[in-house]
């Protein structure tokens, strides 16, 4: 059949074109970071291949929305790539428990990471680690420095100052004070709730108390962030209910909005899209709080497919990733994804420096619902998306949101029953 012939011919041509030599090992990397495709192909892969002749890398990202379902299907059937980019906590833990990720506890280079960094990719008892911690993302606010200068504003430190700044921008009338929408819901939960909430539940302290069942989601420290979110509403753009995440990004980078509740991962994209100076400030501190906290969330790890025939080469690559050369390379190639290794890293991007500098002033914590408390049905993390958006839309009061979340958690989580 002609079709058949064309098929094999095409495959053959493609194989020749890629120039794969028989004795070389090619490691395929699964990832959801399709935004980073050119960084991998132009910087990271050449750097590794230069140091390790005989091992080649092939970066094959999937769109984030399909990554988990596609990866799980491929792992179940045995066709997944050799190297797996790990989501934090339970998604990766589940893969390890099923025997789909290799144990990397004794990997060369793992000693470069603190227990906190490794916690996102370790078993609950901390005995085994199955992914190399690659990057964390920090929450805060990015602002348009030119608008701030024009209106004579300074980056706020306290909550009072924060609202004073928003009022001043609102009064001027030339700009939308804050770029955020709730159509996709996760902005409200991630850039809103998890971003500013850390100062209320006092970072790790409150997170641990929730896991232990000592604090409830109806308590003040969990309801107050929702109250704050509802206070943001008058400062958002018209029709924020159907404003999507890309809408918000464009609103800010086109200079129409002054403040953007952010995650540090935006830095690279904003550098490319915005033609004005940007600054950043950490979540403003509520009155009467001592110290400050930031959400410094372990977000991305990288592990080894247990079914891969090239375990040795895979470990060689992961050791390289865990080393200081790679840490520096990643940190500067993808500003805003901060290395988790203890190795000395110098960042060139000033905005990225600003974000990472908060680590020295404030205490770090991860997002509140990522570990353990989102293991059941209903899923607390996903529920918090809906709840945050509902509060901002006015569908629920902050108290109702807290009660709803607590109700869901109590329904399956023993320490809360």
């Amino acid at each position: 059949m002609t079709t058949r012939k064309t098929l094999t011919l095409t495959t053959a041509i493609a194989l020749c074109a890629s120039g794969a030599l028989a004795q070389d090992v090619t490691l395929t990397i699964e990832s959801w970071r399709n935004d980073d495709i050119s960084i991998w192909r132009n910087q990271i892969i050449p750097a590794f291949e230069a140091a390790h002749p005989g091992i080649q890398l092939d970066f094959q990202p999937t769109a984030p929305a399909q990554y988990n379902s596609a990866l799980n299907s491929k792992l179940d059937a045995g066709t997944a790539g050799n190297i797996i980019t790990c989501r934090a906590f339970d998604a990766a833990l589940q893969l390890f428990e099923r025997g789909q990720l290799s144990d990397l506890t004794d990997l060369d280079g793992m000693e470069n990471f603190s227990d906190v960094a490794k916690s996102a990719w370790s078993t609950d008892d901390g005995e085994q680690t199955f992914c190399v911690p690659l990057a964390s993302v920090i929450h805060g606010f990015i602002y348009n420095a030119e608008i701030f200068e024009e209106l004579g504003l300074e980056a706020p430190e306290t909550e009072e100052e924060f609202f004073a700044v928003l009022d001043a921008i609102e009064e001027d009338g030339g700009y939308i004070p804050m770029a955020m929408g709730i159509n996709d819901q996760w902005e409200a939960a991630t850039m809103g709730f998890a971003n500013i909430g850390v100062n209320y539940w006092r970072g790790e302290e409150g997170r641990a108390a929730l896991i232990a069942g000592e604090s409830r989601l109806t308590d003040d420290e969990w309801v107050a962030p929702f109250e704050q979110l509802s206070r943001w509403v008058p400062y958002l753009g018209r029709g924020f209910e159907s404003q999507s995440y890309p809408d918000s990004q464009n609103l800010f980078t086109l200079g129409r909005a002054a403040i953007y509740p952010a995650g540090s991962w935006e830095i690279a994209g904003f550098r490319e899209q915005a033609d004005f100076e940007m600054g950043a400030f950490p979540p403003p501190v509520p009155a009467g709080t001592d110290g400050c906290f930031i959400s410094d969330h372990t977000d991305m790890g990288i592990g080894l497919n247990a079914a891969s025939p090239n375990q040795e080469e895979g470990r060689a690559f992961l050791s390289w990733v865990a080393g200081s050369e790679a840490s520096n390379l990643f940190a500067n190639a993808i500003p805003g994804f901060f290395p988790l290794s203890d190795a000395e890293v110098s960042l060139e991007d000033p905005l990225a420096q600003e974000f990472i500098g908060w680590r020295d002033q404030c205490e770090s914590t991860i997002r509140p619902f990522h570990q353990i408390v989102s293991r059941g049905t209903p899923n607390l993390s996903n529920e918090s998306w809906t709840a945050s958006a509902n509060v901002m839309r006015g569908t629920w009061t902050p108290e109702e949101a807290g009660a709803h979340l607590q109700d869901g958690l109590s329904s399956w989580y023993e320490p809360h029953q």
Partner: protein
Amino acid sequence: MSARANILRSSAAHAILIAYTILALYPVFLIVINSMKSRRAIFNEPLALPTRETFDLVGFHTVLEQGNFLLYFQNSLIVTLASLFLVLLFGAMAAFALAEYRFRGNLLMGLYLALGIMIPIRLGTVAILEIMVAANLVNTLTSLVLVYTAQGLPLAVFILAEFMRQVSDDLKNAARIDGLSEYRIFFTIALPLVRPALATVAVFTMIPIWNDLWFPLILAPSDATKTLTLGSQIFLGQYVTNWNAVLAALTLAIFPVVVLYLIFSRQLIRGITRGAVK
């Protein structure tokens, strides 16, 4: 009926049809014009045509740099055409058997072949992937062709069986008296007579195959076997900021399928009209 009333009615008909045509095409038109504008112009004047100042093909450059789109296009074309061919051939054969012969279990077989339109095939992903692994077909276009053939058959049999029943018995019986085999009757008498219906089925089958993202992602994600839809998906995710690239990717995805459709639609219309007159 007076001539004036006639003109009035026909202009009313045209007014309605033109209005609806604009409604149908305007969103597509928006994507295409904005894909050729600079980013600022997209946001500031989304409704304007590109002008000399705002004309910018940066989106197309970004997209085309990301992969071998000619190869992806070729893959999509091979997969779509091969699946179409198999769906139409096997579907018509099965439909002919169901429509032409009385045998025990005929009705049951018809119902069995229709089950497939009631459950989304995506749910069988893992099992399908395991089959392809066992058959050593992962990362081949053949695996996609097989899945799309299976996926397209139920609807094809359902529609074609109806049309097969309309083929005149006299013609077939005359052929049988002349000593033609059942296969010859199928290929030389029945098949040409339902060609119009085949075109209808072809369009209905082609659309989901061409636009599918899931099975190329699971079964054939390698660079050599990527389809056009999969190749452009990195710009088509839910959270993508680079609108120049998004709009360019969308434009590139729209054109081939519209051209394919226009090729089939001539047959389709002829098919519908001629098949209808029996």
